[in-house]
Structures are given as structure tokens and as C-alpha cells.
């Protein structure tokens, strides 16, 4: 059967060549797109390291001296005292669970780097991976706001107590060389060039990413402190409807105090959307392009096989009179299209390999040789999609061919 089909394909080599070239180009372009989309899906599925559902960021600012409502600070009612008042007012709201302040969180590319020097001896051939270490200055309630858990099962409350004790929390990717994340626990370190302050690592948490579409390239350290410019808070899920509007409407009367005012409130969902606006558009364009190419395969196959079944009506009629069932005719036509795809696929894989070799595709750029499983998966998906389109395209002409009446078609012979 296969040999006969091959013979038939070679007999009609001219129109099949067009189809083969089309399938080849589309296979490789689709693979490139699937690879790109695959990288984005893999990164989207990775945890951000912080749970940002129902979490908001508030920006509290102070009025400048030339503001008409500015009032000079007093000793009892100074800058930080007024700031603390606003935060406490937020804390007192019944619809808010936890409030914390911090220098940074997720969904921004801010980076405040430092490195860690171990004070205690490390296990043999072990090292700390803190070359790209992002420093978060946070208040004790930060783990509660972001619902953080330690790798040893520490609850957000336990992590908060550790920060309260002055201990630091690090992400598991700080463990370098032959270390395990557990080896980091209770390790004493100094940060950067400052050897005067020794910190103890109180807990280890999962890596924290800066953005959805960026791998956890950085390590992170949570260092306890008090007031920071950004205020983060978690809203009770049942109260999290139209929350920003309600809060802003009430801010003038219930939150602002002295020279301190609420400049803006963002949900982390909004921050994610804003940060990835262009990335989402890019992925969307890729999907549109993929849809177009698949539709093109469908139309090309449909058009070609529509003609082919018309041209080969007599041949198909003879097959029926020679005993072929209509089901066999149907399978033959579908097989012809799929065989063409099978012939083209090794060539397409060769093209894909060239794309990888020259480092043009996203997964190789991100993960190098480790991306092979993703690339194979992308190739398999492309083969599947193309097969579906080919079957879809041949379906109508094949169904028409099944209805051929040999007596009518061969009447003139």
C-alpha cells in the first residue's frame, strides 16, 4: 500500500512538490512559533515565589513644602510618625488581612544587588550562589501578606517571627555548588563589604522571580527592617471586589493624615498586566500567525485535493469496479496527504536543527541544550497540528470521491 502510494506521489511530483515545499516551510515556521510559545508557557507555569492574589501595593507620598496644604512637621508628629499613622489606619480596616512595607516585590525589574559572605564554614566544595542577589528590605509581616512558606514547611506566621528576631530569609537557589537548600539554615553571613553586621539565615523559601517571562535568574534575600516606601497589603477574598475604587474614594477622609497622602493603589494583577503588556501582545501575534499558517495548509490541501479527485475520477471509479471499498478510497486519499507530511518531516526537523544551531529560537536562547525535551514536544505538536489540517483539508474531497458512481464516470469509456 505504502509503496503504491509513494509511486502515486512520484507520478504527480509537480503538484506534490508545491505541497511539499509549503509543508516544509510551514512546519519549520510553526516549530519556531511553538518553541517560542512553549518557552512562555513554561515560564508562566513557574511559581513567582510570592502569592499575589488579593494583594495590592500602595504608594504613600508626602506633600512638598510648596503645597498649599503643607504643614511643617513637629517633633511628636514627624515624617515617619505620620507615615505610620496612615499605615495603621490601613491596618485597622476590617476588609484588610495583613499590611507590610518593603523595598521591592514582584512584577518589576528593580534590582538592588549585594552578595553574601559566609561567616561559618561551608561543607566541602560548597559555595553560596549570590553573584546576582536581589535584596528586599521588608517589614516582619511581609511573608504574611505574600503568603510565603518555607521549604521546611514554615508557615507565613513562623517566617514573620524569624524576621522579627532579625534573621534573614533567602531563596533556595542561594545554595550553590554541592549544597542543598537545607544546608543554608542557621548559616551566618555578612552582606557585601559590610562585615560589621552578621545575619543568620532563619528560613529558606522558593526562588522569587521578577517577572512572569523571566526565569529565576536571581537569588533573593529578605532582610528585616521597618519603614519602606512601598506598602503591600492583602485584602480578604470576600472584600476583593472593586476594592481600589472604594479605597481611593475613602482615602481623603479616612486614610490621609497630615502631609501624608495616598498617591495610588495598584493590584498586583494590574502590575502584571502593565509589565507584560508587550509580551502578551507578542504571544498573541504568534498565535495569530500560527492560526494563519495552519489555515493556509488547510486551504492548500483542500484546493489541491479537490482538483486531484476531479482529475482522478476515472482512476477512482476503476478502483471501485476492481473491488476497492469506498472506505479504502477514503483512507487512500488521506494516506496520500499524511505520507507527504511524513516525507517532509525529516527535512523540516533538519531546518529546525539549523535554527537551533544558530541560536535563533527562544528555548535555545533561554536554556541551551537543556531545552531539547521542549523542542521535541514542539515538533510533535506541530506534526499533530499539521496532520489534523491535512486530514481536514482532504476530508471534503475524499468524501466526494467516495460518492463516485463508476457507471456514470466510466460511461464514456
Amino acid at each position, binding site marked *: 500500500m505504502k509503496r503504491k502510494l509513494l509511486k502515486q506521489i512520484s507520478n504527480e511530483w*509537480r*503538484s506534490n512538490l*508545491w*505541497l511539499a*515545499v*509549503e509543508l516544509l*516551510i*510551514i512546519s519549520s*515556521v510553526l516549530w519556531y512559533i511553538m518553541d517560542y510559545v512553549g518557552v512562555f508557557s513554561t515560564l508562566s507555569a513557574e511559581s513567582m515565589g510570592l502569592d499575589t492574589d488579593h494583594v495590592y501595593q500602595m*504608594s504613600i*507620598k508626602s*506633600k*512638598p513644602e*510648596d*503645597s*498649599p*496644604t*503643607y504643614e511643617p512637621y513637629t517633633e511628636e508628629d514627624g515624617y515617619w510618625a505620620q507615615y505610620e499613622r496612615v499605615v495603621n489606619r490601613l491596618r485597622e480596616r476590617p476588609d484588610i488581612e495583613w499590611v507590610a512595607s518593603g523595598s521591592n516585590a514582584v512584577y518589576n525589574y528593580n534590582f538592588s544587588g549585594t552578595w553574601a559572605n559566609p561567616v561559618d564554614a561551608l561543607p566541602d566544595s560548597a559555595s553560596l550562589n549570590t553573584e546576582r542577589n536581589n535584596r528586599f528590605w521588608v517589614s516582619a509581616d511581609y511573608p504574611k501578606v505574600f503568603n510565603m512558606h518555607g521549604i521546611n514547611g514554615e508557615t507565613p506566621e513562623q517566617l514573620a517571627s524569624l524576621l522579627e528576631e532579625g534573621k534573614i530569609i533567602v531563596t533556595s537557589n542561594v545554595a550553590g555548588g554541592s549544597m542543598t537548600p537545607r544546608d543554608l539554615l542557621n548559616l551566618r553571613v555578612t552582606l557585601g563589604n559590610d562585615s560589621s553586621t552578621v545575619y543568620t539565615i532563619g528560613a529558606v523559601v522558593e526562588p522569587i522571580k521578577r517577572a512572569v517571562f523571566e526565569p529565576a535568574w536571581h537569588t533573593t534575600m529578605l532582610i528585616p527592617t521597618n519603614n519602606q516606601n512601598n506598602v503591600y497589603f492583602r485584602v480578604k477574598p470576600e472584600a476583593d471586589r472593586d476594592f481600589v475604587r472604594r479605597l*481611593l*474614594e475613602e*482615602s*481623603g477622609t479616612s486614610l490621609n493624615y497630615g502631609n501624608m*497622602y*495616598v*498617591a*495610588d493603589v495598584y493590584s498586583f494583577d494590574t502590575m502584571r*498586566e*502593565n509589565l507584560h*503588556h*508587550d509580551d502578551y*501582545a507578542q504571544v*498573541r*501575534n504568534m498565535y*495569530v*500567525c500560527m492560526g*494563519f*499558517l495552519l*489555515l*493556509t495548509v488547510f*486551504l*492548500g490541501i*483542500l*484546493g*489541491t485535493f*479537490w*482538483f*486531484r479527485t*476531479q*482529475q482522478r475520477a476515472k482512476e477512482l471509479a476503476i478502483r471501485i469496479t476492481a473491488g476497492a471499498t469506498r472506505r479504502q478510497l477514503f483512507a487512500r486519499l488521506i494516506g496520500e496527504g499524511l505520507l507527504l507530511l511524513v516525507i517532509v518531516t525529516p527535512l523540516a526537523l533538519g531546518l529546525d536543527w539549523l535554527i537551533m544551531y544558530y541560536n535563533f529560537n527562544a528555548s535555545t536562547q533561554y536554556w541551551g541544550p537543556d531545552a531539547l525535551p521542549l523542542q521535541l514536544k514542539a515538533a510533535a505538536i506541530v506534526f499533530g497540528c499539521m496532520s489534523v489540517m491535512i486530514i481536514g483539508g482532504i476530508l*471534503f474531497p475524499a468524501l466526494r470521491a467516495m460518492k463516485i458512481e463508476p457507471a456514470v464516470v466510466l460511461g464514456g469509456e
Partner: protein
Amino acid sequence: MKKQLRQVLYDMKHQPVIGIVTMIGTALAIFLIMVVVMMNRVTTAPFAPETNRDRTLYGKFINIKNDATKDNSSAGMTEKLTRRLYENLDGAECMSVFNRREQKDVMAQGKPATLRYVNMTDHNFWRIYDFDFIEGKPFDENDFESSAKVAVISRSLAESLFGSDEAVGQTILVEQKPFRVVGVVKDVSPLSAEAYAEVFTTYRAFGQEGANWGSDYFGPFYCVILAESPDTFDRIRADVQSRKQAFNSEIGEDGSCLVDHGSPFTQSEVYTVRGSNGGPDNSGEILRMFIYAILLIVPAINLSSMTQSRLFRRISEIGVKRAFGSTRGGIVGGIITENFIVTLAGGLLGLIFCFVFGYFFSNMIFTSTGIVRDMDVPLQLLLDWKLYGTALLFCFILNLLSSGIPAWRASRVDPVKALSGRA
């Protein structure tokens, strides 16, 4: 032409499936190509307020290197350096200095604050960009020189703060500082990425004229230059070059050197400058060409394959034509014209899809880096004869690609063989 039109209609009537497949294939190809063209055009085509895009240049970033100390710093400029390098250039009509666009909290007394895009610039801004004033007027040189706290705001901001677009004379608080509204302008699309803002004021009103990043040269300022015409770009650049050389000889005593990355940049270049320490990057252009090629070649192969099959059915007709003295050129011309009619009809359909999609789904296809607002694509960008011309050109290329080889092959058929059914 009439003959070819009749032939196309006959084919459509007798082979409706193929007619529809060809039409949809062509329409889709033209639709996608035109969307890509539109995505590109919004960055360079002139439209209000950036109506002078063809004669604007942008002076952005400086990069100072010192090989001896291994220092390599790059950023925007101080106001002083911006004016020194780019003010009163030979061949320039006007120049405006502006600060980086920032989001600042804006409110009316007693209303909650929201973050709004604020452009801090000078009075020349209004000479370069073409805003439509609903009420009031722009701030002027006196306002700029006197650091007056005045602002022009967009209609949507006026409506959200005061409930109507009549806001002249009202006071808004920008970062809690009071600004008197002197004008209200129609909202502009964020696609005019350089001029877009919701509040326009002077950087002097914020006391930022001396702003710097800890040096005499680096600061938050850029500039936009309006050339007398695109022909004076070379004169402007030559003048900038001589000023850079003079600057270099001044800072060069300790080994420092201003690296030239080609600033000032044209409208099409400025979009491809990725960082403060590099020049225009044309890799996006190569990618775009590749996308055009794929979007043209793939449907062309498809259509070509169908054209060939269609011609195969008409081989005896072509044989008759040849037997009656038709030239090969005539046969090729006829087939290409027939195909062009189909391509044109499909292309028109694709263009209509493109307009509808571009207008109603503008947020899906257009983005303006750094600005998160509705894109509101201006109609004049969609309804433009250049766009029709581009679509027609792509139809023509697609037609040649898809019918050229089949037409050439059909014209070479031996009439005897064609008529005996052996071709």
C-alpha cells in the same frame, strides 16, 4: 480585460470551492501583511499630534567613555548640555527640550489621586506637535521663563476631574502642587509615543532645570528638533558633529570621550534605539522583511499549486488559442491578468478585514512601549492612500509569485499535444 473578467466569473460559477478557497487564501494573506504594515506604520507615519514626523529628529542619550579609568556611562542629558549640543542648529526650525515622561499623582481638590502621564517640556513643544485645543491655549515663553505653575490637560482628564471639558482656570494638584489649567486638548493616541501625555507642563514648574545624575552632563533631558525640511537633516547632523567635537576636546583632557551613536535620530530610527549606550538597531527590520516574505511566499505556493491545477484543466483551450496564433506572451499576460483580478478581489476583502480589525481591535495589535492606555488608532492612519498603494503592491507581488510559473509553463505547451490530450 473584459474577456479575462468573463473567464474569472465563469470559473467562479463552475468551480465555486476553488474560487472561495483562492479568495479566502488571498484575503488572509493580504489581511495579515497589511496588519504587519500598519503595526510598522504607526511608528513612522505622520498623524496628529506628530504630524511633522517626516522632519523631526530626536536628540537622546549621551555615552561618555574613559579608556584610562574604564568608565563607561550613558544616560539622558542635563538641560544645559542638551541646549549646547542641539539648540539653534543650522537647518533646524525649532527645538524643544523635554524631561522623561513620568507618571505622577494628579487630583482635583477633594478628589482621590490617580497616576497620570505627565510631560515636562518647554513652550516650543507646541510649535513642533500639533494638538487640537478644545479650550484655552498652550503655555508660552513667559510661563516657561517665569516657572509658572500652569498646565494643559487632556479632555478625558478634565472630564474625570471636573465632570466636563471646561477646565480652563481650574486648579489641579500634581504631586500636591497646585497648577492652573490654561488649556484643554483633545485626547491623543498613545501611538504618538513621543508627544503623548495627559498633563503637559514645564519642567521649570517642578524646579527641574538643574536636574542631573550627579554630573555636569548626565540628566533626565532629551530634545526634539524640527528641521526646516527632511533635506536639511545632513546640515543639522554636521552641525551636531562639530559641536560634539568641540565638547570632546573639552572633556578629553582626562581621557574622556563622547561616543557617537548617531544622535539625533530620525522618527524611524528612534524606535529602534534600545538603550542609552547604542544606536539604532535594524534587526527588527530584517525580521519584518522575513515575516513579509513568509506571509507572501506561503500563500503564493498554495495559490500557485491551485493555478497550475486549474490551467491543467484548460490545457486544450490554451492549445486552441496557440493554434489560432496567440503568442506565448499573450497567453502568459492573459493568465496573469485573470489571476490578478482574483488576487485584487481577495486583496480588497483582506483590506476591509484589516480596517475593521485595526479599528475595533486596536488594543490587540498595537502597543506603545511604556504607555498602558487604550490605543485609539487614528482613522487617518487606516484610511490612507499609501496603505491602498501598499496593499495593491502586495497583491501584485502575490499575483506574480503565484501565477508566474504556471502561466509560463502553460504558454510553452505544444498546441498539437495540447489538442490531442497528450500534454
